[in-house]
């Protein structure tokens, strides 16, 4: 399945990536080739086949609702690009 330049731009927007003008053609082509490869799946009859979410069909384990983790805020914020008074800093969101 071939996709158009606008599709590639839209996917990039969804994925929060920027594609420069000189790369967009190459990326559109690459994505089209990959989608051609995966389109082989469409020819397979999968009527009544349950999608496989886990190799051994294991389900999520539950645990008792108890606090087991200590507070690591300082250690975790030490490696952050920008923090202040225990908060992560980002550019202003609301004027």
């Amino acid at each position, binding site marked *: 399945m071939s996709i158009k330049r606008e599709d590639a731009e839209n996917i990039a927007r969804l994925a929060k990536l920027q594609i420069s003008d000189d790369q967009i053609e190459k*990326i559109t082509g690459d994505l089209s080739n990959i989608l051609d*490869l995966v389109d082989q799946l469409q020819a397979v009859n999968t009527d009544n*086949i349950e999608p496989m979410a886990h190799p051994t069909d*294991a389900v999520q384990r539950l645990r008792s609702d108890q606090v087991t983790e200590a507070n690591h805020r300082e250690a975790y914020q030490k490696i952050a690009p920008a923090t202040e008074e225990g908060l992560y800093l980002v550019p202003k969101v609301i004027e």
Partner: protein
Amino acid sequence: MHNKTVAELSKGLATGEFSSVELTQHFLNRIAKQDPGLNSFITVCEDEALAEAKAADEKIAAGESSEWTGVPFAHKDIFCTQGIKTSCASKMLDNFIPPYDATVTSNFKQQGAVCLGKTNMDEFAMGSSNESSYYGRVVNPWGENLVPGGSSGGSAAAVAARLTPAATATDTGGSIRQPAALCGVTGLKPTYGRVSRYGMIAFASSLDQGGPIARTAEDAAMMLNVMASYDSKDSTCIEKDVPNYTATLNNSIEGLNIGLPKEFFSDQLDAQMQQQVMNAVEELRKLGANIKEISLPHTELSVPAYYVIAPAECSANLSRFDGVRYGYRCEDPKDLEDLYCRSRTEGFGDEVKRRIMVGAYALSAGYYDAYYRKAQQVRRLIKNDFTNAFNDVDLIVGPTSPTPAFGFNSKGDDPVKMYLEDIFTISTNLAGLPGMSIPAGMVNNLPIGLQLIGNYFDEARLLNVSHQFQQATDWHTKAPNGYE
């Protein structure tokens, strides 16, 4: 000392033939001398390793050691190591010093093993040639123009070049087995859920699994004894007793039923490869195994199913890299959207971006059923093929990769060509089964791998058969020129 196996080093340390400090210094010297030409390490932990070695020597002297105490090894740079940079070979994590250890990391620490450093890999484990690392490509010790395979190419190259006796690795679509095959070493991808993934940087969560790369099956068994554990911190980790994988290595394989899937011996397989694999199968027959042809009819669909599922899961997993809490952040973002977009655009390499975009597309509104759901249905068909096969045979055997190591840039500009490199390994990940690659011959003076696929939690059998094969052959002892 570098030609000794983990088992031999462990004995040498216990009997006082050498100390861990001597041993560690020997490997550090070797890395300093040989690795500039290979680039198999991203970080060498010289000071930390010598401190660990000193502590190990004290433990051994006090009689408190285990078989791993003082034995050097290396970690793929995907396992978090507290206080030591863990980059996943990405600019995104070039500044990332984990505040915690992966469970696999702490398992080795508890045993007193000595971590020499962190090995190079494809960026975020996405690749089959180790050409996508932010830190530059890894060279295969068997030839300076050849790829080591990927994504665990640094681990495989370092073990092959005798820069470390063993290394951890991870396998999402073949990333332990294919580089092990291309570098002439032994690698095992355990059953999905056997090894904890806590602190192992995620790529595709329903496929990722950690495992060992070493020179022998015995050493891989010793590695797995440490790596496999039940871990409440990983909700996908299976709660099941861990057997002693070295205890059954010497069992006879007389009467073992081995299946050869006819789909693994198709036109895609190089004729010389085919010959070498059949010679290896003949060795197994001589050891008493019964060989029969089987069919895994959906093999061809494993690559397309994988290239929906893995990118979809990668696009979800890698959405955590937003420039806010850790990792790379762009300069002077003008607003929050700009912070997200430019941090990700500047921090990720091309192949990673490509896969994130494929995944975002497959999961986007209107396409989910056609791609992700469809791929998960085909995945069950692939798993059912294996379930049927294991009604008839105990073990499946075939080639690990279609060819021996190939040249840099030889797959050109087309990502699809590279994806087909994993045709024989991917189905095992989709089914969640354990798979192993062992050196089993040479083509054009390059090592090739024999792949063994077992039923769920049958790692001990894979290791047993591989060990018996290695007792009867010497392919696993061959060293690349200049690294003996």
